[in-house]
């Protein structure tokens, strides 16, 4: 078994075609990231989340030969995750009623929309959590990708398959809508 730990994602992709061990390294690198990403953009949890991750990694493995080397591997796997999550939601309409995005993630968004300090932190984060799930999927996704996953406009464009200009527009609109929702809940911005 070779040492793959110093290989880049893209190198691991080409090695994975003939060597499953290289693919397991990719899975290790991404399973936690993708799991978090799915929880941030959807209400999928528990067994559903595990099933979805299995589907995603199998899809990635089956389609290794279609990976476009002009793209970052992380953008490609996030794109697959995004698409699979959407189709999972369509297939399984029922999921939990409430969901919690971890506080540290919500803080990242709070800092982006300049919330007044005199609100209790816990209240603000609870409100953001509620409001972010009231946004349309397309707005929630760009907020999560930009401010929590820390992706660039270019990467978000590759993940969501939309022009970079649209990414910018969606981010601005999402921030405005989120502020509006928060204002309606009495949070001062």
């Amino acid at each position, binding site marked *: 078994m070779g040492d793959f730990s110093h290989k880049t994602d893209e190198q691991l992709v080409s090695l*994975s*075609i003939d060597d*499953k061990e290289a693919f*397991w390294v990719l*899975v*290790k690198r991404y*399973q936690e990231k993708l*799991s978090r990403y799915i929880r941030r953009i959807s209400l999928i949890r528990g067994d559903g989340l*595990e099933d979805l*991750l*299995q589907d995603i*990694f*199998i899809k990635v*493995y*089956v*389609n*290794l*030969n*279609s990976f*476009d080397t*002009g793209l970052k591997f992380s953008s490609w796997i996030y794109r697959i995750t995004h698409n699979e999550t959407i189709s999972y939601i369509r297939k399984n309409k029922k999921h939990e009623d409430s969901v919690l995005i971890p506080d540290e993630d919500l803080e990242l968004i709070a800092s982006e929309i300049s919330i007044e300090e005199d609100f209790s932190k816990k209240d603000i984060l609870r409100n953001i959590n509620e409001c972010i799930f009231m946004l349309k999927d397309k707005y929630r996704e760009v907020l999560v990708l930009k401010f929590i996953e820390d992706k660039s406009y270019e990467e978000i*464009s590759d993940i969501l*398959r*939309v*022009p*970079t*200009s*649209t990414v910018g527009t969606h981010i601005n609109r999402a921030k405005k809508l989120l502020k509006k929702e928060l204002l309606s809940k009495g949070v001062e911005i």
Partner: protein
Amino acid sequence: MKTLEQLKKNIENKNIKPKSKSSFLYKEWFMWSIGIGSIVLGGVSVSASIFVIKNTQWAMHNLTHDSLFIFVLEYLPIIWLVFFMVFIFLAYLFFRHTKKGYKYNFMLVVGGVLLLTFIFGVISFTAGFGSLVDRGLGKRTSFYKDIEKRGQEDWRRSEEGLFIGKVFVEDDKYFLTFDGEAFEIKSDDMPEYFINILNESERVRVVGILEDDGIYPCMMFPFEIEEKKIFSQSAPKNRNEINLDAERSNKCRGVRPYAKLQ
């Protein structure tokens, strides 16, 4: 770790393997052929539309139809415009789904597709595809009438003073043949430009009066189909004897389209 262990089991037990490179290559070729095919077929629709619009006698709509609106409805190449839109949509979908297609904004992709389709449409019209497609479809299907047939039908209404047919000359007399019969064009006091049209054209359209054994012409136009030239003069000017002496004009005055033109 749970995810990885389960994944290993799944991939091993179900013997899952990466799809071959060639399968993706075939898929890509297939997509490209749909994209290029859509541009080509969209272009053919454009060339057929140009052919139909080019050979529609817009200037003479008041001779054959009660209103311009009805005329436009009847002659607008709707079927080709629908095909054109369908193929534009398919080509748009294709370009959107190419590796980098999503990077360009909607207007740029639509504009690019439209431009390519128009360029191909104009090229294929000048190569004669427009007439080929229009006539071919007219011959082979019952639901589609080609522009030549439609033009002929509009002018084959002798009871309304509209005639169309082939010209032949015998014993210095001009004859118009249609529906298997030959009618003499009364030419005793015919203006010179009528004679020129009869001499130069294989087929003519006549607005006139059907008399015992012939047609008294009030207006005359050559009937030509423009196959390839985009910028040629296809609609002949209204040629009539309205400015001639009162007796002749009075004879023609009863002819419906003639009256309309005054």
